[in-house]
């Protein structure tokens, strides 16, 4: 058996064992680690694999969070029904962003995403419908079969199951026809075109996937906290997200998990 498989198996076993060994507070902390890791995982795909950059992923988390918070609160419907809305909203925004993104690269792309992140932060804090700086409260909790995912163990299980599923899916993707095309984008865009690969489409897919993952995180976050305000969706958080991916190692999918773990746990320790 390959050592990497064994390492992955051990990591999954540790993740599965955590609810049995840890108390509520560390589990809640690890839930936030998992949420950050999902955002960072999108950035591993975007930055580490496709060579694109985005400092605006926190804004996409915000889009997912606010859409679900507003609709579920005002229409009084279950968060399960607003999940597709959150994913669609972040996905559509990413598609619009991709129209610009495929034409930009390097520093220009970074600056454009910084501008987007900053603009969205002020939008979240300035609109009436988002509750301005004071935010929105009284957001319904996510529940299933009488279990509320705001509790430590269910919340942890939900987030880390989603994270592991996404790791599996992205691993599949990178080991496929489309994935090889994505991996050629980073350094060899012209070569990829000469191989008959639609690089604009590949970039668009990568960006949409990363942003829909961020939107998913926002959706869960809104119903986990049951309160949203603009601060977790700031440009600073967007920079932290990139930082997690790069620190953990943007070449590897699990680098996102390592980076999120280190950054989230190291901050309170200092």
């Amino acid at each position, binding site marked *: 058996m*390959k*050592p*990497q498989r064994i390492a992955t198996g051990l990591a999954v076993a540790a993740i599965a064992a955590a609810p049995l060994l840890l108390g509520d507070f560390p589990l809640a902390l690890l839930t936030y680690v998992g949420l950050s890791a999902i955002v960072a995982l999108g950035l591993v795909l975007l930055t580490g694999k496709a060579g694109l950059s985005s400092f605006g992923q926190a804004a996409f988390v915000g889009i997912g969070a606010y859409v679900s918070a507003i609709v579920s609160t005002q229409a009084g419907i279950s968060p399960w029904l607003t999940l597709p809305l959150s994913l669609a909203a972040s996905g559509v925004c990413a598609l619009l962003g991709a129209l610009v993104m495929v034409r930009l690269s390097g520093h220009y792309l970074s600056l454009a995403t910084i501008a987007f992140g900053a603009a969205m932060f002020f939008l979240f804090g300035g609109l009436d419908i988002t509750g301005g700086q004071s935010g929105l409260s009284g957001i319904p909790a996510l529940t299933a079969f009488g279990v509320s995912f705001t509790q430590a163990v269910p919340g942890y299980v939900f987030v880390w199951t989603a994270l592991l599923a996404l790791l599996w*899916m*992205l691993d*599949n*993707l990178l*080991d*496929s*026809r*489309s*994935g*090889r*095309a994505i*991996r*050629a984008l980073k*350094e*060899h865009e*012209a*070569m*990829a*075109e*000469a*191989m*008959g*690969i*639609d690089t604009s489409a590949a970039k668009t*897919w990568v960006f949409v*996937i990363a942003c829909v993952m961020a939107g998913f995180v926002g959706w869960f976050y809104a119903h986990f906290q049951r309160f949203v305000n603009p601060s977790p969706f700031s440009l600073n958080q967007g920079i932290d997200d990139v*930082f997690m*991916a*790069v*620190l*953990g*190692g*943007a*070449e*590897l999918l*699990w*680098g996102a998990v*390592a*980076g999120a773990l*280190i950054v989230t746990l*190291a*901050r309170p320790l*200092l």
Partner: protein
Amino acid sequence: MQGNFEEVVFGVLVILIFQFAADGLLPRLRAALGWSGITRRAILPTDLPRRGLLAVAGLPALRVAGARRAFGGVVANDDVGITVNAGQIVALIGPNGAGKSTFFDLVTGVTRADAGTFELYGRSIAGRGARAIAQMGVARSFQHVRLVGDMSAIENVALGAHPRGRHGVIAGLLRANAAEERALLACAMRQLERVGLAEHAWQPAASLALGQQRLLEIARALAADPLLLLLDEPAAGLRHQEKQALATLIAGLRNDGLAVLLVEHDMDFVMGLADRVVVLEFGRVIAAGTPAAVQADERVQEAYLGAPA
């Protein structure tokens, strides 16, 4: 001040970490453990659908006439005409700056011609982009090798077969593409066997020697099931024995009915291999014919060696 101080310590730690592990912590750990990150897969006897058999020996595969391209006041290609038949190797030679690369870029759609007709088996490829031309069956290698270094050799070759697959991102995410993946890898493995690199299939492309990397580029081009193969200085930087092996390989491709157009500096390599040689100088064709005829041509000798004393 307390909060700010934490940020400063954190920042310093970050800088230190990046000093010692520029690619991030986990890749650094993986490198220390000597893991490659490449997963070997079983290769099954399966195949991708091939193009309809257009290649009939002797039929013109590529026909270019009146190709012109100017960059500002410099006319890089002026009224260039070249025909490459199926089962034929045509070499494009000329001194530095003669316009060989420009011509390559025109045929492959990297740059657009100002004028001229470009036909691939009678279908016009003029004005199309690089991707469309590649999908129509024009495959190429690059003068400066362009491989995805951390990807295995076989995966690099599978990139060339990209237009022959259909499954997209969603199928990839859910692994609903298993049959096609098997066929793509089997096709890639067959091309690796053709160029003699099968034993290196699962090595990272960057770990191969330059000569092997050039062969890998040819394998990648062959994976496209091309009608026309364009090779940009395939022998550059190769040792004598490697050149001989390369010549044998290219001659074999000709015998399989492929049309091959190659740009080359190495005269010995070209003269022993090509069926026809076209000589460019200052963007114009100054001679064309068999290697022997071209070699005897006075204008060619002048272009290469300067005017006779």
